[in-house]
Each structure stands twice: as C-alpha cells, then as structure tokens.
C-alpha cells in the first residue's frame, strides 16, 4: 500500500466497558480531529464485540481504547481477540486510562501500545498514532 500524502488517518475512539468517564475520550476525539484525522466515536457502553465490528465496518486504521474503571485487561484484550477473529489484526490498537505499569507490559503483548496515563500531552498521543500508522499500515 502506498500512502498518498493527502490520505487521512481514520480512528475509532471507544470505551469498551461499563464506564461513563468519557471526558478523556471526548477531549481526544476533538484533538485527533484538529490534528487532521477522521474520528469516529463508538459511544458509551459499546461491548468489545461491538467495537471490533465497528472498526471493521468503518475500515479504520486505529482503534483508540479508553477505560478508567480498572477493566482494561479484560476489555482491551477482548477487542484484540475479536479483531483477530475477524481477520483484522492489522488494525492498530492504542490504549489509555488508569493503567498500572505491570499491566502496560501485558497489554503490549496483545499489540496494544501507548497505554497513556492521566496528564499525557495530547501531542504525545497524536505523534504516537501517526508514527505507528506510517510505520505499520502505510509502509
């Protein structure tokens, strides 16, 4: 695949759990959009299956997952598995929320990178997504 310079990154922002803390997710949506990406928000209470289905249907480059309720290990991993089962393991997964250090290593094994904690500058997240997409999807 060749990256046309005008091509825009498509991102699905999702909270795959019982978690109404959407402040970070909504701020991120606005920031990614302002950085020139196409942003789709999965809305609240989307199950991991629903998130994976949306990611495939919407043909996104990246799914940005956010949870602040402590369920990230279960829920993020489920999204990764669901994507794999749909033959969409090439969709990149990026995580964020209240994620302890030990869990970050385990999440990376599922291919979920970033796992940004509170106070992360938006620029850091935007750069991370752009770099991964260029390196892994637009190569």
């Amino acid at each position, binding site marked *: 695949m060749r990256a046309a310079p005008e091509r825009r990154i498509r991102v699905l922002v999702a909270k795959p*759990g*019982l*978690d*109404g*803390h*959407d*402040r970070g997710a*909504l*701020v991120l*949506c*606005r*920031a990614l*959009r302002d950085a020139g990406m196409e*942003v789709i*928000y999965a*809305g*609240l*209470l989307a*199950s991991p299956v629903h998130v994976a289905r949306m990611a495939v249907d919407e043909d996104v480059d990246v799914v940005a997952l956010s949870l602040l*309720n*402590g*369920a990230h*290990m*279960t*829920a993020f991993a489920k999204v990764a598995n669901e994507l794999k089962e749909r033959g969409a393991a090439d969709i990149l997964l990026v995580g964020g929320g*209240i994620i*302890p250090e030990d869990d970050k290593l385990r999440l990376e094994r599922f291919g979920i990178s970033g796992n940004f*904690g*509170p*106070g992360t*500058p*938006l*620029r850091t997240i935007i750069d991370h997504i752009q770099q991964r997409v260029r390196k892994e999807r637009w190569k």
Partner: protein
Amino acid sequence: MDRTRSSPERPGYIENPSGIPLQRLYTPLDIAHEDYLMQIGYPGEYPYTRGVYPTMYRGRLWTMRMFSGFGTPDDTNARIKYLLKQGETGLSIAFDMPTLYGFDADHERAEGEVGKCGVSVSSLSDMEILFDGIPLDEVSTSMTINAPASVITCMYLAVAEKHALSPSVLRGTVQTDILKEYAAQKEWVYPPEAHLRIIRDMMVYSTKHLPQWNYVSVSGYHIREAGSSALQELSFTLADGFAYLDLGLEAGLKVDDFAPRLSFFFNCGMDFFEEIAKFRAARRIWSKVVKEKYRAKNPKSMLLRFHTQTSGVSLTWQQPLNNIVRTAIEALAAVLGGTQSLHTNAYDEAWALPTKEAAVVALRTQQIIAEETGVVDVIDPLGGSYYLEWLTDEMEKRTYEYLAKIEEIGGILQALKTGYIQKEIADTAYKYQRQMEHGHKLVIGVNAQVMNEPSPISTLRIDENARLKQIERLRQVKKSRDSKKVELALDELLQSFRNPDSNCIYPMLKAVKAYATLGEIVEIGRQVFGEWNEPSLL
C-alpha cells in the same frame, strides 16, 4: 490605589477558571450596590448566603463522610468498620460498575468489572453482609447510585427491617440524580422519562414513609469532573434541582412537603475563592427561587444543604504526595463555603481506589481543619470580603443567565436530549486541556516542575477472585429462595411499570424481599422502557 493601578504586574491570567474577568483589587465600591440584609443577611436566615444554620460549626461540625467501597460486601464491611473506628461520622458507599448499570455479578458485561470501582451488590443477601453489625439507627448512610437507586433503597429498607428498625428512624441519602447522569456520569439504563417516573414514585413513597431520608442528592460533582467550570456546575445542578421540584409538584406533592428533603452534592476544586463563592451563591439562588417562583412557605424548603467532595480531577498521577496538599486546600474551601458533610479524596486516587493508609490521611485532613485551624470558631469568616462578596454576586448573575438559556432551549430535559449540556461540558474540558498544552495553565508535576521518578507509593489491588465469590453467592441465593414468590413479585412489578398511575416502589420492595436480584429487577424495566442511546457529542 493609584500605585496599584500604575505598577507593572507579572504576566498571567486576568480571568478566573469560569471565565470571569478579575480586577487587581476589590474595594468597598465593588459591593456598594449590595443591600446587606437582602443579599447577605445572617446565617440560618433568608437568603442563607452565610450558611443554612444559625450556629453553623459552632453548633455542630460537618459530617466526615468517606466514600468507600471495593471488592465483595465482606471487604467493604470491614473497611467501613475500620473508618468508623478512626472517627468517621457517616457512611458513604461506592458501588461497582455492574451494580451502577444494574447488571448482576454473573452477567457477561460484568466480566473484569466486579468489585473494581466499588462494592458489588446483586441481591439483598449482599446488602445484609455489607451492613452487618452496623447500627443503622445511629449512623447516616449515603449511597452513590442512580439508575438503580430505587432498588438499592428497597434493599436498604429490607435490611433495616431485619435489624428490627422502623423506616422512620433511617437517616441517609441516596444519590438518585439521573439528570446529571445524562449530563456527565453517564450511568443510565432507560430513557430519561422512565427513570424520572421511578424517581417520582420514590419521592412520593419517601415523603410518606421516610421522613429523614434524602431521596435525591442533586449532584454537580460529576458535571465538574466531566470537565465543566464551577459556573457550569452550579448552573446545571440548580437547573436539575428545579426539575426535581417540578417532578414532585406533577406527582401532586406540595412543595413544602418534599422540598426540605432534597439535598445537594458539589465538587470543590483548586480555585479557592471561586469555590467558596459558588457555595454561597448556590444557597442564595436556591432560596430565592424556591421562595419566589415555587412559593414555598416553610423555610426548610429554601435551605440548600450540601455534601462536598474534593476534586478528583485535580489530583495528579505525577508526584502523588502533592495531592495531600491539594485536597487540604479544597477541603478548607468547602468548610469556608459552609458544607454539611465532606469527603476528602486520598492522595493515591489518580492511581487506584485508596489504600487504607491513604484513606486515613484524607480523613485526618478534615480532622486537622476542624481541630487545629480555628476556621470553625466564627461563622462564615470570609463574609464581607470585598472580593468574595463581589464574586458571589457575579456567580449568581451568570448562573441566572445560564438558567435562562436552558429555559430557552425548552428546559433541562430538552437541553440534555439535544446534547447541549454535554457539549458545553466537553468544550470546556477541551479548552482546559489546550490551556495545559500551551502552558497557559500550569499544574505542578504535570506541565511544571516535572520530575521523572518512579512512583513512591504502593496502590490497592482488587482481588480478582471477587467476581467468582460474588457469582457463587448469587448461585446460593437463587438456589435457596422461593422461586414462585420471586416470579409473582416480578410480574407484579412488570404490571406496575406498565401502569404510570401506580407507584412501583411497593412491588419493587416485595421483589427485593423475595431475593429477586438487582439484574432481574432492572431487566423487567428494560422490557417496558427500553434503553437509552446518547445523542452524538462530536
């Protein structure tokens, strides 16, 4: 004054966080328009700017109420007993996410979430364990739950009955405020009209049977945590409060029969004077509107009594010990603002639920303010400050403007259904984040005085077996209960949900006592009312 005007200043903000432009200095001229008795007055007297009680903390200190809950009911029961022993004076229960959304611990959606953000409750059996050995006639209990608030209230009543207590002696608060769920916390099940109908039934039931029960705690806390300014928190919370007054009136209650039992719950952030002004303006506006628009005669209807929690979002993941200082400053503002009860956050809460040690430091923070600072010795000690009185007026004026705007949209329900409120909050959150990114707003440890050090604290880990334990207990409950009785009770509840003229609390209480589970009861409602989908917020 001339020297103040002509001297140079260091660069920085000329607006406070709510966007109110600030002068360098305030003088008697800035509050010269004020009529002392009409605007400020005396504590315990209309318009209650200086406090709802005539003696305030000279009469009685605020209730030190620490929000706690995690893991199984057994875990939380042990934590509550520990906090009571440490001098806590009221209970405050946090429920886990499945409970807040009305799912039992064995539901598929509960996987990975049981006991994580609070205690797991699926049936009356769990509530019996949660309150085991706690004298419910002596403590007051606050329960932070909204969509299934009526079910949890019924469980509490059933536990009290097992303790041989009359409902009339029960003191406490159940949050119940569904309007702010659509605005901010986003823990709903049904569309708003359905939840409001159940709340209406609970208002009527409580007015009749629970004279000391605050059945709605109108909450700004979550609106603020979701990103609003203090001004938006104040405006949207009061708009919600007035909507509950309208709901009670529609149910045929008289304002003076139920308004005294509405209570409020506010956030307290870092801008010290703005917060104190917010609390004072809240009392003044509520009393004025309840008196003038709702024609209340009973002074108790006009009292805005409130609980405060220090700001969760002001706490930083970086350099967590600094959070002790932040919480202390916020707690001091809440006390100077005249709060009736207070929860102080623990320094480790940007990381996880608090450890026992961190929760005790938070409680000690309140005790130090109460015993060592002397701020409790004089009522509203900052009253009369030129700046504070001016800012209180300004918050009041701008709140009326917001209320008029909501009115223009067609009321708070319409403003929520169109996403107006949610977008206002998200826009403010984004604006704040951009100020941080550009360095216009500095937070120590985050974008100033940054240190790259490993974390110096250890945090609470929730037992992953909590879910298995809860599923096993649920299995036992379902095995030992009279399933015929459950079925009949649930059917009666279904009929009541279908008939908006009936009061659903009576059959709900029956179902709870028959050990119908939270998930079963909520599901009955789902069959009748359906689910809620949020409007697009992008």
